[in-house]
């Protein structure tokens, strides 16, 4: 097992470097640079000042020099300073990451708590109206653009009905520890974020449960005289969950990267929005740092997933 883990981790290292190099190249080769974008449209800036800043940021160096300089700093834990915000990148990520994690884990829990039972119910009542309805909900939930849903939520539930706030994490003036206020602010974004997950997990579970229900051991269970509910939730579900664990493995990284659109619409100060704005403004330090963290997490989570799968299903032998 240990050799397996070690080998996987070592295999991940070149992948990791490849990802950083690719991102670096894409960012640098695409048009414009952070300094021009910082001041675009302002008529009272002199070109000489801009050139001096580019030099100060090292933007006039050859690309390989810039990359290895960045890499050297990262390897000692220095992710550099944001060009735009002139603050350490770590500080900015440290501020945005908790917000994104709160949102993402809540959305994940909601998606699982709603999606998995829906999938099981749909499988149980396969072919009936209940099944049809759940499947349509699944398709619709997957097809709805989150941006549109988010705005609709705001327009109907926040503006017309005044049930929820429009955006942000809390109400100005209220105690920051007011849980009720915090939760109220989370309803919209979590709902919008979990829509796709609910749709996915319900469809997914339905398929898996149906697959499992066709297995021999289930027929044995029925033959033994077990109630359907027990067969379903104790035997079938457990087996159907295995692939779900696999799927969840890759989610760790996407949790971290945040949902750009939701954060934009609901003014949620998270990683997605920060990364998107950084990418638009060519704020390389932030984008590279987020890529490093996300890819590291992704690669690690794949290893964890493989190990977990091996642990959960004794039939799987890890080589």
């Amino acid at each position, binding site marked *: 097992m240990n050799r397996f883990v070690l080998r996987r981790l070592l295999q991940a290292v070149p992948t990791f470097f490849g990802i950083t190099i690719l991102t670096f190249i894409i960012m640098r080769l695409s*048009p*414009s640079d952070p300094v*021009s*974008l*910082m001041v*675009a*449209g*302002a*008529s*009272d*800036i*002199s*070109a*000489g*000042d*801009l050139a001096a*800043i580019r030099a*100060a940021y090292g933007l006039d160096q050859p690309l390989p020099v810039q990359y290895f300089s960045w890499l050297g700093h990262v390897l000692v834990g220095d992710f550099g300073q944001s060009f*735009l*915000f*002139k*603050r350490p990148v770590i500080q900015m990520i440290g*501020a*945005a990451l908790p917000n994104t994690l709160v949102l993402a884990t809540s959305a994940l829990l909601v998606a699982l708590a709603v999606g998995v039972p829906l999938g099981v119910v749909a499988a149980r009542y396969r072919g009936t109206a209940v099944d049809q309805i759940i499947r349509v909900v699944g398709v619709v939930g*997957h097809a709805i653009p989150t941006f549109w849903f988010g705005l609709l939520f*705001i327009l109907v539930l*926040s*503006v017309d009905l*005044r049930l929820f*706030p*429009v*955006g*942000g994490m809390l109400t*100005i*003036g209220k105690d920051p520890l007011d849980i009720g206020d915090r939760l109220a602010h989370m309803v919209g974004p979590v709902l919008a974020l979990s829509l*796709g*997950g609910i749709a*996915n997990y319900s469809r*997914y579970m339905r398929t898996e449960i149906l697959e*499992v229900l066709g297995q021999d051991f289930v027929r044995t269970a029925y033959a033994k005289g077990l109630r359907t509910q027990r067969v379903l939730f104790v035997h079938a579900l457990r087996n159907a969950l*295995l692939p779900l664990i*696999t*799927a969840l493995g*890759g*989610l760790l990284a*996407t949790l971290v990267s945040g949902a*750009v*659109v939701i954060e*934009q*619409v*609901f*003014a949620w*100060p998270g990683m997605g*929005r920060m990364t998107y*704005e950084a990418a*638009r403004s060519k704020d390389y330090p932030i984008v590279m740092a987020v890529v490093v963290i996300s890819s590291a997490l992704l690669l690690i989570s794949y290893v964890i*997933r493989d190990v977990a*799968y091996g642990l959960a299903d004794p*039939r*799987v032998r890890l080589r």
Partner: protein
Amino acid sequence: MNTRLGYVKATLSAFVLIGTACAPVAPAPVAAPTNAATGAGPTLVVAPAATTADQPKPGGRLIVGDGSDSKTLQPVISTDTSSSLVWARMYETLIDVDPKTGSPVPRLAEKFEVSPDSKTMTFTLRDGLQWSDGSAFSGDDFAFTVEAVMRSKRTVRKSIFQDIIGAKDYRDGKAESISGIKVDGKTITVQLETAFCPGLINIGGFAIIPRSVFGKYMDPKDASKNIDDAAENSAPTLAMGPFKFKEWVPNDHITLVRNDKFFGGLAYLDEWVRRVYPDANALAAALKTGEIDLGSIEAKDFDTLRAVTTLNVMEYPNNGFTYLGWNELRGGKEFFQNKAIRQALAYGLNMDLVIDKVLFGHGQKMVAHTPPTSWAYDSTGLNDYKYDPAKAEQLLDQAGFAKGADGIRQHNGQPLEFTLITNSGNTIRETLIQIAAEQYKQIGVNVTPRTEAFEALVERTDHSKDPTYGEQGGRDVDAWVSGWALGADPDAYSIWHSSQIQGGFDDTGYKNADVDKALQDGRTKCAQADRQAAYKVLNKQLNEDQPYNFGYSANNLLVASTRVQGIEPGSYSRFAQWNINKWWVKP
């Protein structure tokens, strides 16, 4: 379950899940930089109804909504308006500009004057000025601010101060202070190497930071030390303005509280808060629900928000404009060098229709560079290029561009056609190029509208090189739509002087000796009457030559809760903040 199949399924499912989770979603429309200047026309402020019975009461909080977070609270390294919206409430300037006309007015300095040779500025400070901790404010803080700019590696403002005598030596570490700045009690004297009229507003209007806080990051003998990484850049400890810093929750909000030592009359508001709403629709929704008290909206939301009884919508001219640029240094499109063609492109585009369709009427046509609200504006002799397709066609005929069988004009085999580019995601500009293409087609000009990413367009107009004229500074573009956010000073040197074709902002390659001279005069002969005369010449020539179709200026649309009193909008003060200390909220 068969293990191998299960593994395959598991992996596939993982990909499916990750794939769907990472499905590219259309990024929400980022509010494009609305660089609009208002054109001619009456001031159209719809000020909130004056309630004479109410008296200002201290207390309460104002929540302002903006589209992005501040990047820094340090004026020296700040480059964007989302940052200045906040730090300008805490840091003050020697002089300010009149919010309606842009003329210089006293602020920390109760008197100011410029010497006849325009090389010396003298400011006289008021009595009893104090920072928020009670320590005395002095001219030395101003001198320190200039020192901080000259040694900063992140500032874009060195060009403002580098003509001060001794500034360059200080920057290079050859001096321990700037010799051209002398502080004598309440009097500050700034001496320039050459006459530079914009210096008054740019130097006198620069926010001053305290030496007592930032001095420790600098060393007079060591030019490599600067304030760029000071912690107080994000968490200011002292303030001169009506408010001082309380907290900054990144990307969410910044809270300021009243500064009890403010010289201009203590603010009535207890707290001033700025929240971030990146999506314009969400911001408008937040105004409707009262989640924020003040914000700017797009033209399309004007009617809906005006119908809300708890909101006041104020419309007033903008100090900037959106234009169509014609590249005169473009291989194959040399017709742009012909004034008659450019004039035809002014007569041939119905800008009023554009303003109507695209801005819902909330804008004004521009026909020259300086916006009508500026003190430097003079409308005499300006051609308003009223939409006249017949005249346009006449000009094109006279220029030798006859219509071919396909309706497109051509001259000596060179067809009158070009590509018109703007940045994607900006629906206003995208509609503008569509309308332009349609209307120009009618006069026999074949225009292909195209969009590209904002970054690509910036790159194109800043750094690209035309294959034929690249060496002379020609950019790799035929024609494009972009905008300018103008500064407080009417100087337009960086955009129109012929020296600015290479490496400056004269992206069209326009060159005119009278314009060059007028720009120079405007920069060196600083009596207001002289500058007015210079800019009259500048605008008359630009109006005639039409190096741009000067397009339109989209009006500022500022929305405030009816609870907020004291607002007096003006083109030269973003979000009408110039008199924020006089605002109060009805309980």
